[in-house]
């Protein structure tokens, strides 16, 4: 087997997995708190767009990244308000936000950049070439971009946050048994908002990666990654490390798709690979993956 091809494949997989991972970990926080977040797709899109917009106007990619995070949080805020405060059906709220994101980004794409398919080109994040590390194959990829390195840090930090910190304990309690948490003085509403907004920040960051990788915004550029991230979250059993692992797998599927382009197989079949993979993987987990007990159920406080 050709080592170089394998290593390139791994490196490419890692790069591709970044937006999936960020969105999936974000989704984990939201759902651990008990709020289903289908809006990850729309947050990725909005994050990418705000990133491009901010970078375009300021010329500074770091401002773009910050804008992406803020854009993601703002989008997630809508979901939080509708789902937590208004206690509406969370799945539908998430879908509506995805439709909204699609509509708003297309609208603004036309109005600001005058195009229905893509924005102007923007400057990306700096590519780091750290002296010693730049010659080690896979490691080199990880440190080549601040967002990739950042993702690795986020994976580890999230695992700690969820299972070893006060915030994590309270978040989990609120997703499993909100009445019990409330009876001990934990604010169910507050924690759920925190979980959802955190998912917005992370998925927004994922959107920043998409924008930076492509140096522009293209219509519908999230292409279902947000939904696949949800599948990864389920496969990863609602914990950050597991989700990250599952995302590598889905990233590999997309990477494979890219490798096969241009060969004799029609593009449409190659395009199907990540989506088919998701269905098959999910079906293979019969009953083994159990979500937090109160996931998706709006919390009705007893009449005080």
């Amino acid at each position: 087997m050709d080592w170089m091809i394998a290593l390139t494949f791994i490196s490419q997989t890692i790069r591709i997995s970044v937006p999936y991972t960020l969105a999936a970990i974000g989704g984990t926080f939201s759902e651990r708190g008990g709020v289903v977040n289908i809006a990850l797709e729309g947050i990725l899109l909005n994050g990418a767009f705000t990133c491009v917009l901010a970078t375009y106007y300021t010329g500074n990619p770091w401002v773009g990244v910050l804008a992406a995070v803020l854009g993601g949080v703002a989008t997630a805020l809508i979901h939080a308000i509708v789902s937590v405060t208004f206690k509406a059906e969370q799945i539908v709220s998430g879908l509506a936000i995805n439709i909204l994101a699609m509509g708003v980004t297309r609208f603004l794409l036309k109005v600001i950049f005058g195009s229905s398919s893509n924005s102007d080109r923007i400057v990306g994040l700096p590519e780091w070439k750290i002296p010693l590390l730049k010659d080690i194959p896979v490691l080199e990829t990880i440190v080549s971009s601040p967002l990739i390195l950042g993702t690795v840090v986020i994976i580890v930090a999230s695992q700690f946050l969820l299972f070893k910190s006060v915030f994590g304990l309270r978040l989990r309690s609120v997703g499993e048994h909100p009445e019990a948490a409330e009876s001990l003085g934990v604010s169910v509403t507050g924690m759920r908002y925190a979980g959802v907004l955190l998912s917005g920040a992370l998925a927004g960051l994922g959107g920043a990666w998409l924008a930076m990788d492509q140096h522009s915004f293209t219509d519908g550029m999230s292409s279902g990654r947000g939904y696949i991230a949800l599948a990864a979250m389920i496969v990863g059993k609602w914990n950050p490390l597991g989700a990250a692992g599952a995302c590598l797998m889905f990233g590999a599927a997309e990477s494979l798709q890219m490798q096969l382009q241009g060969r004799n197989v029609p593009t449409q079949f190659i395009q199907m690979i990540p989506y088919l993979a998701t269905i098959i993987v999910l079906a293979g987990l019969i009953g083994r993956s159990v979500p937090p007990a109160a996931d998706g159920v709006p919390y009705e406080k007893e009449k005080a």
Partner: protein
Amino acid sequence: MLQKLGGAIVVPLIAIATALLAGAVFIAAIGQSPVVVYGILLRGTFGNFYGLGQVLFKATPLIFTGLSVALAFKAGLFNIGAEGQLYIGTFAVAWVGFTLSGLPGFILVPLCILAGALGGALWGIIPGYLKARFGTHEVINTIMLNFIAIALTGYLVTYVYFVPETVHTQRIATQAQIPRLEEFWPVFRGSPVNLSLFLALGVAVAVYLFLWKTKFGFELRAMGLNPWAAEYGGIGVSSGVITAMTLSGALAGLVGVDFVMGYKHYYEGGFSSGLGFMGIAVALLGRNHPLGVVLAALLFGALSYGGLVINSIVPKELVDILQAIVILVVIAGTNVFGKLALSLKKRSLG
């Protein structure tokens, strides 16, 4: 009774009002006058018969997808896959239409309609089975299947059944083509609204009868409201899930009757720009009731065509934004309104 009707209307009205208000903000933000823009929209849609015909044309597929999503909701399922189901169904209609072109009209027409239903049903039974057998949530599966359906039909129309230099298939046999309304009512001249509209309305009535007057509909609704009690009452929930998703898919597949048989007379790649997703908004606004769905479809049809009318001034994507706002307000408002109504009722009983 009147109270129930009143309740059913209030929230959708608030939702529409909110959406129009939000739309006004967007319009103003790009420097146009909302009053002027909405005026053009109103005149273009309901101000003349041509516009009305266009509205009815846009509404027809939305009735099908709206019913599809509504039926699934009634059974407690989220059919996000109407988009994929209508792609497969529409392609099936075209395929039967040009492959079996030797058959006489009175056989071919029903056959094509059946093909649409079966194509959509096939794409609906897959997630239904996956849920019943493996317990995997239909939301992700249907979304994945949407992408797969678009890719699959894309492949078929690009590599197999294509007409060179185009992105569509050959034409279907003439006897399978459904006439436009303008052939009976010249006022609609120029607009592509066709007889499939009546099929849509008929199907809406059929869905109503099915859900509320048959024992199968009883079981579906029971399952949607409380699957545990349904199981207790002897209702097979697993088979119910499969049945509901299949029927839901079949309804979405009927879009092909309008698009292929009544409009273009061939299958064209990328013909649906989110009809399946709009079906979700239609179903929600219509409160998952066939009558509501028809009315909501008319409204969204008007917005959809209206978007085209004002496209030179305001990007037509505004309609998507309005659609999303309608959904958000409906679901947020339903809960609030439901609690309000319940407490008012309790007070009146006491």
